[in-house]
Structures are given as C-alpha cells and as structure tokens.
C-alpha cells in the first residue's frame, strides 16, 4: 500500500525508515530461528523493499493474487528471507509465521518458491530467470490493457548471467514502459566481491546502451531511493526502467556490516540477540 503522506515528504521518509527497521527486525528473527541465512542481503535491501512496498506497489494485502496488483518478482530466490520480512510488514503474511521459517512444512522455505508463499510471484533462485519472466508478464499485461507495473528484483551477481542481458535487449525492443527492474548492487556474491569476480562497471552506461531509463542511487539513502522509484513510475516514455541500488550488506547491524564473509551468515544464538539489539539501538539514534 502506498502511504498517505504523499504531500509531506519528511513524514513519509520517517515512516519508511520505521518500516525498513521492522523489515530488518523480522529478517533477523527468521534467521535466528535457523541460526543461519542470507540475512546480510535482507539488511542491505530493506530500505529498497520499504519503498517498494510502502511507496510504490499497488496491492491488496488480504488478496495477494488480485488481478489489478503490481507484480513484484523476486528473481534471486536466496533473498526470500528479505521478501518474507517485507510481506509480513505489508500484512500479506502474518507475523506469527516467523517461527516457522525454514521448517519442513512452513510456507516460508529458505529459498523463495511461488507454490509455497502468498505474495511470492515466481520461483527464482536459479539465477537469470527473473527478467525474462518479467518481460513475458509485461507483454501479457499490456495485451490486456492493464495499468499494472511489473517490478523485478535482481542482484549484481545475477548480472553475470547471459540470460539477463538477452532479456535486457528484449525489454527495450518491446518498449516495455510497465517494467521496473531493481538491482541490489551490494558488490558481493558467493565467492567474494562482484567487482573482482566479474567486473560489471560502468553499470549505468551498460543499461543505458541497452535502451533503458537508468537511475543509480545509494540504496540505503531512503530519500534517494524514494525519488528514484517515483521518477521511474512517472516517466512517460515507453521504455523499461531500472534502479541500480548500491547497498551495504548487513546495513543497520554494525558487526554484520563489518564482517568479511557476508554471502551466508551463520552465527551463535546470543549473537542473533545482539544483532537485533544493535539494530534497534542504531535505529533509535
């Protein structure tokens, strides 16, 4: 749901920051249930998800498959914990399911799968599938004269995949003005920094050359993220839009921000408690 403060930006930003902290809190609590998870990503992308779910997407929390909704595709299935946290904050999933995270018969499996979770539009996780599916959905929605946007969240590691770039060409070729891609550029992937695994810069120039409207922002600067989403939606041109969000893994929990290996985090029970306490201490400042 878009928030009500459209005329009062400082109030809107304050609300979004509270939402983002709650998303981080839910993600940490889910990870604590299993003692492990892709939680560095969730902390990093929480501000982007807060803007997406509380200042951009049109949806009905009680009816996640309502036909008039904007679609939000999680191409990066390992980020499921981040999206679950956002869906809980959005009221699509109940907070009580946090305890079931990763359990055998849970609706919140460790990797995001459409058949398990309300609000999970696709089964991502094999990297490079999300953007092509998004293009198909955009074409389908245009054919039925729908006004819905299709948002798709990718990661910097996922930009390594050839299929992503095949799709990038299709999107501009088909003039998909209803497509908004978001990339979490945390400069991290499984084996280390993305920039040293497979250099991706100059990133904005690449997408522009592929025919996209591009915004590159500090993905942990709420003001900047909000402006980018607003601009992406308001753009009158029939072209796909992409918001490249530079984020910090572990954002909001200083000892996780400082960690060397953040792709998958496994820490002790008391450290999870400390992470949650540190998050709230930081947010209160």
């Amino acid at each position, binding site marked *: 749901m878009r928030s009500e403060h459209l005329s009062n930006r400082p109030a809107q930003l304050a609300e979004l920051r509270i939402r983002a902290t709650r998303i981080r809190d839910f993600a940490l609590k889910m990870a604590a249930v299993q003692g492990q998870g892709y939680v560095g990503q969730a902390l990093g992308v929480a501000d982007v998800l807060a803007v997406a779910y509380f200042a951009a997407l049109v949806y009905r929390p009680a009816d996640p498959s309502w036909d008039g909704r904007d679609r939000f595709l999680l191409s990066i299935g390992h980020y499921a914990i981040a999206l679950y946290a956002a869906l809980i904050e959005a009221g699509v999933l109940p907070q009580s399911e946090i305890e079931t995270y990763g359990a055998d018969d849970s609706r919140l499996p*460790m990797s995001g799968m459409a058949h398990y979770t309300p609000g999970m539009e696709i*089964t991502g996780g094999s990297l490079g599938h999300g953007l092509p599916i998004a293009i198909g959905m955009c074409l389908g929605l245009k054919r039925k004269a729908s006004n819905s946007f299709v948002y798709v969240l990718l990661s910097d590691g996922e930009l390594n995949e050839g299929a992503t770039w095949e799709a990038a060409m299709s999107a501009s070729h088909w003039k998909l003005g209803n497509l908004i891609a978001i990339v979490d550029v945390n400069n991290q992937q499984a*084996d280390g920094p993305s920039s040293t695994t497979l250099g991706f810069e100059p990133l904005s120039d690449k997408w522009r050359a592929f025919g996209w409207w591009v915004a590159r922002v500090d993905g942990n600067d709420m003001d900047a993220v909000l402006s980018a989403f607003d601009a992406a939606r308001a753009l009158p041109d029939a072209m796909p839009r992409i918001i490249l969000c530079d984020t910090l893994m572990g954002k909001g929990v200083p000892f996780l921000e400082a960690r060397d290996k953040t792709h998958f985090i496994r820490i002790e029970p008391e450290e999870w408690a400390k992470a949650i306490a540190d998050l709230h201490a930081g947010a209160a400042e």
Partner: protein
Amino acid sequence: MTLADARAALPTKSIRQQFGETILDLAGERDDFVVLTADLMYATGIDRFGAAYPGRMFNLGIAEQNMTGVAAGLALSGKLPLISGYAVFTALRAVEQAKLDVAYNGVKVILAGQSAGLSYGVGGPTHQSCEDVAIMRSIPGMIVLVPSDAVEVDACLRAAMRHPAAAPIYIRLGRGAEWTFNAPGRPFEIGRSVRLREGDDLTLVANGSMVVEAVLASDALRSMGVAARVLNLHTVKPLDVAALEVAARQTRAMIVVEEHSVIGGLGAAVLEALAEVPHGPVRRIGIADSFPPIGPPHDLRASLGLSAENIVAQALDLLRRT
C-alpha cells in the same frame, strides 16, 4: 540390528570435502589440469586448489554457459579442464555447450556436478537435480559416472583424470555427509561394475547414494533367507551390459535403485540394455515423474522410498510375485 542401526553404525564423510581434497592432490600430478567454476569455488570445496594454484583456476562468475564454452576452448588449447559446479547448472543450464562445444569437438572436459539428486534438498526445485543423468547420457560420447561415497569419489576422480579417451566425462556428485562403506584402495574402472554382494535370488542394481542402501537391504534380506546380489553400476555410460546379462540369467528378478528420476536414468539405461536379452521382472525405485518436495536429503530420500527399508519391501513383494 535394524536397518537404521546398521546405517548409523557407518562412518560418514562430506562429498564436497572429499572432492576438494582429491582435486588438490591431483593438481600435483599434471600441470595441464585447470579448474573452472561459476562463482561456486567455496561452495564446491575447491578454494584450497584455487589458493595453491591461482594460475590454474578460472572463476567465470555466475555464467555457466560461458564457462562451459571457455572450458571447451581451453581443452582445444591443450589443457585438461574440470568444471566444478552444481549438477543442475552444469547439466541443464549449459547443456548445449556441453553437447556442441565439448562433446562434438571430441575434447576431454571433466564436468563435475555436485549437489545432485536430493542432496541439496532444502534448495527446492532450483537446486535439486533429478534429471541430469538422463540429459548427460543422451549426449554422444559423454561418459557418465555416479560414485557412491567419499572413497569412490576419490577413486572416480583419479580414474577420470587418467582416462585416455578424448571424450567428456560427467561426474554426478552429492554434497554433504554421506555414509562411507567402500574399502579404500579398490581400483575404479570406468565401465566396469562392482559386485558388492553375491546372491542368486535377485539382483539389486544401484549407483550413487543408493548403493549403500542396496548393500544394507541385501544384508537384511540375507537374514530373511533371500540372497540378493548387489551391483554398483557407478558407470551409467558406457554401461556394463555384460554384468547385467549375467545377472539377468542367474537371478530371478532385478531392482534398480537411483536418486534420480525414473525417466532416463540408471533404471532406464538398464532396461534399454535388457530389452535385447531374456530377463525376469525389473522394478525401478527412483523419483517419480514429479517435483520432489523440499527438505533435508536423508529425510527426503526416506519419504520417497529411496531407502534400504523400501528396497527390502519391494524385493519381498517382487519375489512373491515371480
């Protein structure tokens, strides 16, 4: 002793860890040996190789199709490349590169696919890999190996490395801890099955994680008066047709067990071979034509009947009917 007790009495070893140790060891043998990965260096246990031999390690980023083509190019330039990835991405994402750039060119590239079958069960359909054997064995010239425990993984990698054929070799591997039961030091001969238990009532044919289950089932059946031969068919292609023909002649029935779809895997390969010769009834235990649920590998296997318990039950039922 129950089957669960017998299983629990066995030692275990991580397949990934064994893989990493053997690769590091083999690197000393040949200078032309190079390793490629697609952002799965740590995840497939080859980080120590990478640290020891930085000039022989190519991390291509998450780009499996490109990586497989690059491996072909390296092979065409005189290197012996090994691709270290997950089975699902190695065999499915980059299948056309494996077919054309590698197999059609007749170059030797070792494609090592970890996390096969249900061994990364919590990853769901994106990471489970129950189709890879069917796909890889249909590629002309592709050798397909499915070792059964850490001991055999080690022997299999050494045999693949030394194999003289100018042909690609797909090696299907698990991921985490698996029961260890093979005796160390036994040579691994590509194309030659291993008879692990004698018996003339029926034959249990298995590969990969299901060999130990077949052995445990055979031991349990023996205490019930049923003599079940066990054949470890670690090589799906080229298949040890001779051993299968002998088994078909000497035993009344056959059960083929694999952690793979019943379509196109070991069971299918065995039936294709037996179609040419007289044989008794053959039953397949594998993954039905559906997407398995998510869960830890040992739980999933048990719930899908990929277990010694189910092999025993199926064997008794099959013998009752024949």
